[in-house]
């Protein structure tokens, strides 16, 4: 007799809960980062303060110093919210041959890791956001215009989905390469550069900006920040989010395609 499966939500919630409990076991790790993370904001602040002072201008590429601070603070906050380290976990599982554990659960491998990521990271998000906000406020962080809030929430959700999907894809590479530390690092640098977390994308030549605006990376950091700061018109933002959403769908389909091959590779080559 076939057994009834639990609903997707119930399974998802249970895995998320377990991940959250696990993250509580590492709470000390987060409390330590309380002190380190805000320093990043200070670094950007002093760097840009120096640039503004020596250039003698009040506005550079459309940003005032206060906007610049806002930009980096929001980039960091979006970074916390969308954080995913699933590639590291997959690498660990593959190298040590522990994937069978996940495969013995009545959940797809993708969902297992998605819910685990949600659970594992929610504590970190809450703990890390506060000090960065406080430092940001002290340096003149601007509030978002309330009208943009719905769009902002959608933008951050898309950013999180894209970032997780890309990280998951990076992780799946471990099924062929085993050790993927180099790949993980490259991914991080490429995302940092092309998503605008190092430098606002408006600092690049117009042609490059045009190209960037069609890449998925833009939607991981730059788009939500632009919406927060009210730098894009609503219509333009909606259009951008549609492209972002299309990327989510595309990357999701790619992960499924890659996963099928990864599973074949894994189950074909012995464990």
């Amino acid at each position, binding site marked *: 007799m076939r057994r009834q499966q639990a609903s997707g939500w119930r399974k998802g919630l249970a895995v998320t809960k377990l991940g959250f409990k696990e993250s509580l076991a590492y709470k000390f790790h987060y409390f330590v980062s309380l002190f380190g993370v805000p320093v990043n904001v200070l670094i950007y602040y002093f760097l840009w303060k120096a640039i503004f002072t020596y250039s003698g201008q009040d506005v550079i590429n459309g940003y005032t110093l206060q906007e610049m601070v806002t930009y980096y603070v929001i980039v960091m906050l979006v970074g916390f919210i969308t954080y995913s380290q699933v590639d590291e976990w997959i690498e660990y599982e593959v190298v040590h041959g522990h994937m*069978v554990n996940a495969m013995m659960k*009545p959940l797809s491998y993708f969902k297992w890791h998605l819910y685990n990521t949600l659970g594992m990271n929610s504590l970190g998000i809450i703990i890390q956001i506060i000090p960065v906000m406080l430092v940001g406020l002290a340096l003149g962080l601007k509030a978002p215009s309330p009208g943009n809030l719905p769009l902002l929430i959608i933008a951050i959700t898309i950013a999180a989905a894209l970032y997780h999907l890309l990280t998951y894809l990076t992780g799946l590479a471990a099924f062929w390469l085993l050790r993927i530390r180099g790949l993980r690092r490259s991914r991080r640098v490429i995302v940092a550069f092309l998503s605008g977390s190092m430098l606002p994308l408006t600092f690049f030549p117009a042609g490059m900006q045009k190209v960037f605006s069609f890449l998925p990376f833009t939607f991981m950091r730059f788009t939500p920040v632009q919406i927060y700061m009210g730098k894009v018109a609503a219509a333009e933002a909606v259009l951008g989010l549609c492209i972002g959403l299309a990327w989510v769908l595309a990357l999701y389909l790619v992960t499924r395609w890659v996963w099928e091959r990864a599973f074949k590779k894994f*189950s074909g080559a012995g464990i």
Partner: protein
Amino acid sequence: MKPGNIIEVNGLKKAYKTSKRDPGLINAIKALFKRQYMEKEALKGITFSVKKGEILGLIGPNGAGKSTTIKALSGVLFPTSGTVEVLGYTPWEEREDYVQHIGVVFGQKPQLVWDLPAMDSFEMHKEVYNIPPREYATRLKRMIRLLSLEEVVKKPVRDLSLGERMKCKLVASLLHNPDLVFLDEPSIGLDVIAKNIMRDFIIETNKHNRTTFIITTHDMQEIERLCKRVIIINHGGIVYDGPLHGIKQQFQSFKVVDVKMETERNTFSKKGCTVLEKRPYELRIQIDTKKTTIKEVINLLIKRYDVADINVSDPPIEEIIELVFRQ
């Protein structure tokens, strides 16, 4: 599927490619550019079936194909050819549905969240496997009592002893009352007491719920006490399938002679005899009575050696299995 059967495996074959490389730095660099592959046949077309409520022992030397068999049966392996039907499923085709019916304990893999009490992992299982709350509570209580885990399940898994951890893994694998449970080396590294408790628990669960167990282990005593039937796998094929005492009968012609001597001698050779162990004043000799007789061997020993003591016995199960492996 025949009535009463829950597993039917037919001509299961599994070949896979592995990269090979000669040792040395030069060869390591060469391998970067040109990989050599070697095809390995892990399973050469095995056929067997298992009835509901059986406890089946799967034995064989390392690399014989035991784990490959378990992986194919648990749905994480695509076979090269052949069919597998378990509980009406083809395991690797409907994995998510199928795994609700089975439980797996990997003796060598961590299966519970390391930094949390086992209880937290159990709770997750309850939801994910859709276990009705009351069933969950009674089943868990019963297992905790049988394995005396009252305090153990509250401590982080990392602080548990190997035996406690294994017991918790066993509980986790049984919470959803699976029809079929795979135990892959469940007693590895455990002491005798823990082994006994686990063994009694497995027998009790088998009787109580008619759970079918498939166990791989290198511990022959465990097999002897748990399994009425064993399948011996070697070089990817089944070399024996039947009751354990059946193997003994097959090798009834073998006897073991332990000799103690007054003077130091440690060589012995005769047709039909193999020396199993040598110590300065002791020899352990295996006799194939089809090729020679006990009388001849003992006469020879007494004539040529300074014999202090002689003991003739049936070979223990470990040595019989070794004989099967060597064939």
